[in-house]
């Protein structure tokens, strides 16, 4: 829980100055063995960013555009020069997500589903880094979170997702991605122009 830790404040001055209105979310690079990690995290990324007040470039069309240009591998896509991305997609910034953990395969003792993600927001006009962050979520968290009501809610929420689907990691990925990209958190993404809270954080 971010609310429980006192992480050092990161510098978001460049982010505040750049004032991006639209974000191109690139297909996430996946370091986990489960091939669903990329589509799962990509499908969850629009929600927190759009609710934060940004225009988010449609992720399915973006994926198709890269595919039609012979690029299906996320790490290749992440290597495309930012000037080229700006030229095609017209977005103010691009989000480079990496999935470090997704699923259960690396766990030995517990069968918990764990998702760990990190992201970097790059200004497509200058190539400058505007923000970076990381987050994780687990199907087994909550017992020792000490997060009070918030912790209990998260626990209940995760159990509910797990109980309603066999695609457990996908549900956990939704929580991790929201933690990573929702605005209004310490060191989180700033609110964008379409949010009533824009400029107030």
């Amino acid at each position: 829980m971010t609310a429980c830790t006192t992480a050092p404040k990161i510098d978001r001055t460049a982010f505040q100055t750049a004032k991006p209105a639209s974000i191109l979310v690139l297909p996430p690079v996946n370091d986990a063995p489960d091939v669903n990690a990329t589509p799962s995290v990509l499908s969850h990324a629009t929600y927190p960013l759009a609710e934060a007040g940004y225009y988010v470039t449609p992720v399915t069309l973006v994926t198709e555009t890269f595919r039609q240009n012979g690029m299906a591998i996320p790490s290749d896509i992440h290597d495309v020069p930012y000037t080229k991305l700006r030229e095609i997609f017209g977005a103010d910034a691009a989000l480079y997500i990496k999935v470090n953990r997704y699923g259960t395969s690396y766990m030995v003792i517990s069968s918990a589903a764990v998702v760990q993600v990190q992201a970097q927001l790059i200004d497509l006009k200058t190539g400058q880094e505007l923000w970076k962050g990381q987050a994780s979520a687990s199907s087994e968290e909550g017992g020792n979170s000490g997060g009070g009501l918030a912790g209990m809610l998260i626990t209940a929420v995760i159990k509910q997702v797990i109980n309603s689907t066999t695609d457990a990691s996908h549900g956990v990925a939704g929580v991790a991605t929201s933690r990573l990209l929702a605005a209004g958190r310490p060191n989180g993404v700033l609110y964008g122009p379409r949010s009533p809270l824009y400029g107030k954080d």
Partner: protein
Amino acid sequence: MQSMASFTRTTQLALLLAIFALTGCATQKTLYAWNDYSPQVYQYLKEGGGSADGQVLALEKGIEQASAQNAKLPPGYYAHLGLLYLNTGHSDQAIAAWNREKELFPESAQYIDYLMNNMKKNGS
């Protein structure tokens, strides 16, 4: 279908609650009516397209629901619908949907124009 629908609702509720729990503030209304959008996108990405007809129906239903609630649809919604129309051979509807995306979100203009130019070039 029933289990898919309940999975969808549960996931959305989960995300809403997760955000609420994270921010720890009073609940605020979401900016957009998400309906089935994210699960449809997941299905599309996971299956490399999936069953376009079923997804078109789900998204068209979402438009009716949002309009009944007087709610806005999220960024990308009409753009994705346009892609589905294109994949099912309905180019005119695809163009209409992409124009709607541009109208609702002028931020999308450059990319949508790029897509429409490509479409013309490919003669589809």
